[in-house]
Each structure stands twice: as structure tokens, then as C-alpha cells.
């Protein structure tokens, strides 16, 4: 399999699906002439022309709503936000329209739309540009949420998302775009939503992560290995639907769980996973479920403080040790 970057894997997914289905189009700020703010859509304007790769002015509420309306009547829009932070001004379109129209219409209308963008911390982009927005959206029924960590998953899941008849939100990361990995070039390659992946087998403790933090968790596991601790790392890949079975099977083996992800500690995806584990594997647990999240403060600009605030391998390793009563 060819080795490609996460960024190209997403691009391949969009190009293949646009080749396959002319109802699919890409709309967002700077996706066309500028070749994408993060170059994800590089070359797509030349390939598909301005009717299918559409540069939008700064009006997220407007073009998110345009995507929803176009999807209702049968198109399959891919709406790119420059970053997920900016979806906050389009929040109502996703909460009140995209996720509700099928139900409000008694099942008459569906909204086959994909919203995608980089998410969470980048490098020193400050308090307003570092939000982990999946925690807001995963709460909402009617939506599906994916957060791939690996290039092959990014491609397979995004292709499935584009073919899905429901609104799917894809959480990428600026810091993941240049990660390389083997990616199938078979245009029929897709990956079902709702399947987690055990990216590292282990017997002593289970680390549950998603998106960029999967890589941090793998670093933590490698560090723990040196100390004779064998941690299993689960990449959720999709947050809604959530593959809790894979998590429970691992916990049934390790009896210890650490949930790690970007985003503030109060509520969100991390709390949900911890709650499901304690409810569904109560008797399997030999220690409290630990959580490693972004500190409960707005993101500081200063580089050292920023690193202090976001989850690190060391913090995850320490949480694993706490769960093993080794600290």
C-alpha cells in the first residue's frame, strides 16, 4: 500500500467520492483558489471546477445552512470549516436543523451532509482557536461523529461518511495533517463507522483515546513498557456511534482503564466513556477509571503553558500507574 499523509488521505476520499457521485460537492472558506487553508483540498478546484469546489465568504451559519438545505433535496455536501472553532457561529444550524430535520419531518427528509475541519489545539493559536469541539457535538442525537487518528482511517471513514444518509461530523487536526501511513488506493475501500481499533495490544491496563491523542497514548505505552507495564491502546476512531464493546472487552482483560483526549474535563466524550465503563463493566474494574484531559482553563498562548495544559504522554503514563496503584 502507498504511504500517504493524513491530509492526502482525506483528499483522496473526497476526490474518489466526487468522481463516483456528482451530487457530492465541497464548500468552505479558501477551499478552492487558495487550495485549502491547510491544503487538504489542494488541486480539487482544478479537477472539479468552481461549481463543485466552492469558495465561501466568511458566513459559517450561512453556508452550513446552505449545506443542510442542499442535502435535504438530495445533494451530498461536504462543508469544510476553516477550523471547528468557527462552527460555534453555525452551532444552531447543526443542533436545530441538521440533527433534527429527519425527525421533525416524520422521516420524510434526510440530511446527508458532512461537516469537516481541523479541531482542538494547534501550536500557540490561543484561547479562541484551540477548542476541542467534538465534546459539544457528540452529545447530540441525529449526528454521527468521527475522529480518525491514522491516514487510512481518515480515508475510509470519510468515504463512509460521505455515503452516509445522516449528518456526519469529521474531526481532524492540524497537527495530524502531515502524519504518514499506509493507505489503500482501492476506490472501493471504506471503513464502517462505530468500530474502534486496538492499535496496541496489552494486558495490564487499557488506554482509550481518539484523534491526535492516540499517538500520545502510544508514546505513553512505549514509555510504560520500559517500566514493565504492558498497556493496551484503543483508538475509538468514531465517537458516535461509539464502539463500547471493544472497550469493555479490553477492560475485561486488563481490569483498568484510562480515558485520554483533548478537551476540558467537565463532561464530554471522556466522561461518557468513563460512565459507560463503570456501568457496563463495574465488576471488572480493579481501580477507578482515570481520565487525562486538557486542564480546565482556556488555552494559554505561551508555549510552555500550552504544553502544560494539554494532555502529554507522561500524564497518561502516570494515570496508568495510578490505576495500577504503582504511584
Amino acid at each position: 500500500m502507498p504511504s500517504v499523509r493524513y491530509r492526502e488521505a482525506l483528499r483522496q476520499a473526497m476526490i474518489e467520492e466526487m468522481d463516483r457521485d456528482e451530487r457530492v460537492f465541497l464548500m468552505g472558506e479558501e477551499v478552492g483558489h487558495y487550495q485549502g487553508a491547510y491544503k487538504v483540498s489542494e488541486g480539487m478546484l482544478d479537477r472539479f471546477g468552481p461549481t463543485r469546489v466552492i469558495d465561501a465568504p466568511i458566513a459559517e451559519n450561512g453556508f452550513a445552512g446552505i449545506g443542510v438545505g442542499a442535502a435535504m433535496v438530495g445533494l451530498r455536501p461536504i462543508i469544510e470549516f476553516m477550523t471547528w472553532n468557527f462552527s460555534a457561529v453555525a452551532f444552531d444550524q447543526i443542533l436545530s436543523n441538521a440533527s433534527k430535520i429527519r425527525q421533525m419531518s416524520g422521516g420524510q427528509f434526510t440530511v446527508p451532509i458532512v461537516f469537516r475541519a481541523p479541531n482542538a489545539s494547534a501550536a500557540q493559536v490561543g484561547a479562541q482557536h484551540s477548542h476541542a469541539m467534538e465534546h459539544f457535538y457528540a452529545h447530540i442525537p441525529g449526528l454521527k461523529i468521527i475522529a480518525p487518528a491514522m491516514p487510512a482511517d481518515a480515508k475510509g471513514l470519510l468515504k463512509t461518511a460521505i455515503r452516509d444518509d445522516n449528518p456526519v461530523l469529521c474531526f481532524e487536526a492540524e497537527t495530524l495533517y502531515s502524519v504518514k501511513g499506509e493507505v489503500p488506493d482501492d476506490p472501493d475501500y471504506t471503513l464502517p463507522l462505530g468500530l474502534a481499533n486496538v492499535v496496541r495490544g496489552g494486558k495490564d491496563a487499557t488506554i482509550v483515546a481518539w484523534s491526535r491523542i492516540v499517538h500520545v497514548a502510544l508514546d505513553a505505552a512505549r514509555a510504560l513498557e520500559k517500566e514493565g507495564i504492558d498497556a493496551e491502546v484503543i483508538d475509538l476512531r468514531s465517537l458516535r456511534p461509539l464502539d463500547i464493546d471493544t472497550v469493555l472487552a479490553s477492560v475485561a482483560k486488563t481490569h483498568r482503564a484510562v480515558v485520554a483526549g483533548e478537551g476540558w474535563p467537565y463532561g464530554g466524550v471522556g466522561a461518557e466513556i468513563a460512565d459507560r465503563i463503570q456501568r457496563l463493566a463495574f465488576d471488572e474494574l480493579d481501580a477507578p477509571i482515570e481520565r487525562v484531559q486538557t486542564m480546565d482553563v482556556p488555552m494559554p498562548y505561551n508555549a510552555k503553558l500550552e504544553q502544560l495544559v494539554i494532555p502529554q504522554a507522561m500524564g497518561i503514563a502516570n494515570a496508568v500507574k495510578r490505576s495500577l496503584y504503582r504511584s
Partner: protein
Amino acid sequence: MLATTNQTNLGSAPDARTERLVAFYRQMLLIRRCEEESARAYAQGKIGGFLHLYIGQEAVAVGACATLEPDDYVVGTYRDHGLAIAKGMAPKTVLAELYGKVTGCSQGLGGSMHLFDAEHHMLGGYGIVGGHIPLAAGVAFASKYRKDGRVTLCFFGEGAVSIGGFHEACSLAALWKLPIVFVCENNEYSMGTPLSRTMAVEDVTLKADGYGMAKDRFFVRDVVEVESRIGEAVARARKDSEPTLIEARTYRFRGHSMSDPGKYRTPAELEERKKSDPLMRARAELESAALGDRLEQLEADVEREIEEAVRFAEESAEPGPELLEASTYAGPFAR
């Protein structure tokens, strides 16, 4: 200055006009009666939640929808019963929805504010002010993308013109030349807020120039004039794929919703405005055209249709729990 009604420049011969007026009168009456029955059922506790009546504004939806092809789209607000019927939906599916029955247009899941009908291209009533305007622009975007020649009509109140959704939808529709007509039904009140506390200017369509959009503005007195004025905008959308912002000055005779005592306006004001009720105005013109018996016939038909609709709504079954998950996601449920 607002253009006032002028029958001579409607470009339709008197008898042709009378024929249209008969058809429009019937639809307006159907809406009026349907709303009156809804109010009654609400008072009896048979309809719950919010109920926003369209009484007084019927001429807007009826005149506007008369300009459309069957495949054209409409998108509206929570005040959507009149639009639904004007677009061709049967009163019984509307009433059944208000009653929360599974035979309702949205299977009793949507309710009064969320009437949808795929068959008649009624793309919904929406409850978040301004939230449906970008969505409507997206429907028009799809028509342009597919070159299907369809037009989208989007309805909203004057209370919606200060909110971001209106502005972004107009900005994008003008920039991308979308085949849409934005119809602002200015009924002079946003809940209890009069025009003067909503906008610094009285003319909504002044905003059109800032978007580079065509505009039109008129008082709603004569339903046939509504048809011709909105017809021009629909033609512009269909032929030139150009959007238009229309302000239709109208008035609602009931409260904002059933829970609104309407203390913000005097009974005198209300009575005064009822004198120029476009529905009664149409009826008077038809009577003076000596169409008395046809009117009686028509009104009897409407009564029968409404009676049947009420019975249908009363007797229909309620939706079952099995609809909940199935209506949340297409395909297998996700958790």
C-alpha cells in the same frame, strides 16, 4: 413610497381576474377555517404546545404559491399552516399533525411549527427565527447546481431581519445568484414588539441594495396583486437566477400564539385593520360580481372539507414509540 393596489395594471382581464379570485378566495377561506378549528381544538386541549395562527395573512401564502410550479419549493416559519395548505397540502394532514397524530404530515412528531411534505415540496416550518433562511438558500443552491429550473420561496417575519441568519443567507444568495425569493411578511409585530422597536428604518427592502439584490415592497390588500408582484420575482429567479427581497405588509388578527393576550395593541387598531381583511375584500368583490350562488356552493364545500379534516384528526391514531429511533437516524441507530 409603497405601491397601493391598482387592479388596472394587473394585466388580467376582469373576468379572468374574477376566476382567479374565486380560486384564491376558496384557498384563503380553507386556511381561515382550518385555523379557526385549530384554535377551537387548542382551547379544548386537543392541540398542545405553541400554536401560531395565520389568520389575516392568508393572501400572502395563497398569492405567492399561485406563482409556483408544482415542483417549486417553499420554506417557512413556525407560522406555517397557511403556507402548507397554500402549497397544496390537505387540511386533514395539517390538522392531524396539530393533533399529534401519526396520520399528520410529520407523523405527529413535528407538530404545529414543523409541517413538512415531501410530495408537495413543503420543506418545513422552522422554529428558530432566521435559522431556515440559509437552509432555503441551500435548496435554491441545489436547483442551480442541478439546473432543474426550480424556484424556492422562503417566508419569514419582519422580526427576522435583524438576525444573522437572514443577513448571511441574503449575502450568499446575492453573491451566488440563487433562484430564490425572500418573502418578508411584515405584519407589524414581532410577538409584542412593534416595527419601531425592531428596526431603525421602516422599509425592510432598503437592505436589498446592500446585498446587490432586487427588491419589491407592497401592502397586501388584494390577493391577485400579491400573485402578480411575487410573480415578477419568481420569474426573475427562474429566468435569470436572481434572488429578490420582497416585503409584504400584512397584519395578523390573532395573537402571536394562543398564549398571547395581545395587550400591545388596542382593540380599536385591530378592528380598524380587520376592515381591510383581504379575505373579506375578495368575498365582497365576488358578491358584487354577482357570484353569490357560486360563493355559497364553495363555502359549503370548504365547510365539508374542514369537518372531514377535523374528524380525520380526531379519529386518527397516535404515533408509537417505534418511530423514535427510526426517525432520528436513517439506517441503523447510532450510539
